[in-house]
């Protein structure tokens, strides 16, 4: 009996020992950057894509510089409370000099103060709530423009360019969609249009036929669905066709997903409109190399949530590099370097620099229409004049 006791206690003792001693044997100081996102759970499709793009960015950076920066992933499951703990795990790790994320606006508002207190810069590639950058924050940045930019441009497009006056707005109860829908609704009314209805669906809904029936009967001419999940948009479009309705579908950048929105709808989204803040990344010649490597290493499909995260990761990495080159690698220095970011050409095909609140400068939106199996740029109203003419692309 004595030996049995020992055999059970010994491993446990070793375990505890390893937990205590492991940090003492830690290798030479490494530079880490963190990434926060919903890598599991209902929003995992968004989170995993962002993670993959961030991994690619780190690999590219390491190869270009010969450094060996580590990417630490911290899963938030899109729950702000888990995001808080996950953020603390990054903040408490002194080797972490910058963070990508969190993905959702509600997560950002739950953790922003913690990052500010730790002087740790965090850059989101998908949090678009305008309120996040409104009040003198110093550590939060984003590579995507806010809902306050995209919502009104979508509304103006629908009213002025498409000439539609009766709109039905649906959000998917994500903070992304609600903010966007609110902004668009306000602008649409201001422009003189009429909002026939405004309703919410949920991100795990798998059927919209009853909603489509309702909207079809309501007299609306178009549905504006700024959802986060492109396959939900595709399903709405499918059910519009299925019920023989002629509603026009307009989505926001969450819908810009070839696999889910175009291929997945089996032609139902043909002619649908989608907005996007950058020229379609697939058409940016300078980014083709990165796109190809992503397709080769991770997935042949990507959405508008991915490349902005690549851009955000590179912003962090380059800030770390500049801080290290100036001989002062600290969180404060990295934060200041992030604020001073001035990329002439990012993966998104546009320059990246931040204003004093952390918002990306010079953001403008473009409208795309689904033609065949690609998103094709639509010439649009005066508010949305593109600065550079991005080429429409053929993507399979």
């Amino acid at each position, binding site marked *: 009996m004595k*030996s049995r006791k020992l055999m059970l206690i010994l491993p446990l003792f070793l375990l505890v020992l390893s*937990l205590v001693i492991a940090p003492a044997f830690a290798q030479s100081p490494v530079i880490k950057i963190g990434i926060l996102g919903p890598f599991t759970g209902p929003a995992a499709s968004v989170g995993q894509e962002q993670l993959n793009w961030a991994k690619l960015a780190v690999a590219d950076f390491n190869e270009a510089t010969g450094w060996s920066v580590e990417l630490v992933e911290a899963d938030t499951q899109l729950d*702000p409370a888990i995001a808080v703990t996950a953020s*603390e795990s990054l903040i408490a790790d002194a080797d972490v000099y910058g963070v990508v994320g969190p993905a959702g606006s509600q997560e950002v508002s739950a953790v922003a103060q913690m990052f500010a207190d730790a002087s740790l810069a965090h850059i989101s590639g998908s949090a678009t709530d305008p309120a996040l950058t409104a009040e003198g924050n110093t550590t939060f940045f984003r590579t995507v423009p806010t809902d306050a930019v995209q919502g009104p441009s979508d509304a103006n497009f629908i009213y002025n360019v498409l000439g539609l006056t009766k709109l039905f707005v649906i959000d998917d*109860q994500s903070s992304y969609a609600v903010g966007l829908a609110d902004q668009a609704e306000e602008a649409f009314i201001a422009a003189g249009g009429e909002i026939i209805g405004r309703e919410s669906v949920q991100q795990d809904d798998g059927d919209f036929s009853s909603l489509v029936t309702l909207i079809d009967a309501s007299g609306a001419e178009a549905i504006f669905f700024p959802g986060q999940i492109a396959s939900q948009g595709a399903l709405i479009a499918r059910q519009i066709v299925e019920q023989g309705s002629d509603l026009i579908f307009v989505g926001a950048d969450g819908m810009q997903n070839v696999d889910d929105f175009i291929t997945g709808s089996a032609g139902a989204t043909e002619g649908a409109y989608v907005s996007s803040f950058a020229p379609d990344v697939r058409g940016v010649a300078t980014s083709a190399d990165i796109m190809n490597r992503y397709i080769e290493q991770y997935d042949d499909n990507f959405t508008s949530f991915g490349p902005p995260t690549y851009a955000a990761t590179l912003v962090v990495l380059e800030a770390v590099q500049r801080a290290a080159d100036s001989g002062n690698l600290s969180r404060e220095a990295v934060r200041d370097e992030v604020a001073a970011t001035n990329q002439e050409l990012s993966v998104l095909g546009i320059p990246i620099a931040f204003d004093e609140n952390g918002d990306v400068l010079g953001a403008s939106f473009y409208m795309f229409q689904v033609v065949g199996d690609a998103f094709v740029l639509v010439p649009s109203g005066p508010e949305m004049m593109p600065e550079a003419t991005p080429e429409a692309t053929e993507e399979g």
Partner: protein
Amino acid sequence: MSKDKIGKDEWVASYQQRSAGIVGWRGALAGISERLPTWAWFALVIAIGVAIPMLTSNTYIIRVAGNIALMATLAMGLNLVVGYAGLLDLGFVAFYGVGGYVYAYLSSDFSGVHLPTGLTLIIVIGIGLLFGLLLGLPSLRLVGDYLAIVTLGFGQIFVQLMTSMTRVNLPGHERPVNLTGGPNGIVNLDPFSILGFTANTVTDYYYVLLAVMVIILIVGFHLNNSRIGRAWRSLREDELAADAMGMPTRQLKLLAFALGAAIAGLSGALFAAWQGSVFPGNFDIALLINVYAIIVLGGLGSLPGVIVGSVLMIAIPEILRNVELAGQLFYLLIIVTLIATLRPRWQSVALLVSVIVFGLILKPILVALSPASFAALEATSSGFVDTIRNWLAIPIEAKAVGNLAFGALILMILLVTRIKDMRVRFIALIPTLYLLSFVWETRLSQEPSITRLLFVGVLLIVLMIYRPNGLLGERRVEVV
């Protein structure tokens, strides 16, 4: 401790006598725990709790400890309802949410109200009691799973309303009013501040949460040993009999609901103050699952069990965030499991050696068969990992092969547990262990976030199978 035995039946008493006869270290531990007076246990918990921030300045560890204290407090509320009174309440987390939102309404610019924290907490507890009574009323008519579904519905409705009520037309307002902040929640809440003490740092909040947990622990302990506690137990064991004995079953049920809800409301308010914001997503079913897992893993109706359960359910997923640590734990766990389950003892050593030899033979064969599929591996930062990766035959298409291996591994594990013949099982274990290591290196270690949750799932199944009554639960005979 004999005076605590009231309310337990003879079988339980005889079981406890038998368990006192367990020899070895477990018996010794059981003996110590029997002899230690209750206040000493409380003192021990408090001492450990107070010591944590003094031993480390790592805010992450302190925050996780704070989460444990918070979840333990919440779970004690649920334990009152489920563990003591035996009412399957699946809407419990909504009370936590009510507490959080009430705190948010009373201490933020969202509503423009800034009450002192002390007053807010009293209101929160009052509202919690009230909501508990409201939800308790249907429980008088419904039993078992019908109660479960109605309460589940209540929980869902709460989250749904908090998400949706952003544009409500109220009389006297021209435009729709935002009542709840929707998915963007209510932010910038006032910090917890009571009697001149304002919590600012993680450590401050940790002490507040710890203090509240201890208070609730003491309350729970006394409730359990009071007339009410015994009455609840009789209700849980046999409602009809309790009714026949003249117990006021209606009032007892309502009381359980109300007290549980009040505790949940209080924890919700503390949570809101700590996070500084509330969102509907804070109060969804994922949390409910967690709290249930805590009380069942710890042992239904057991107070120390709640703390043990919280430590398990909160700390393990956090430990698994660290990839390297998770890897070490993984291999250690395999070895410990082998040593603990294989008899005679030399078998585990023989098995490990066989697996190593198996790998050493397999790799050259595979490489010889298809040299193009294998390439030199890149070195990682850990020598231990490198050794294992070099021992395994990891192909270039590691991801695809790893996925297939994962499926094969599940089948192998299911098979191995079915094999009765010792020798066959020994032989089957060799490739299984090899696959286990292979899958870890090719897939699991690459996807730490997914692996975490896979682990939690396996942990729940295994723990339940080996300890169906929870880790510290009393073994009870189910009356059929």
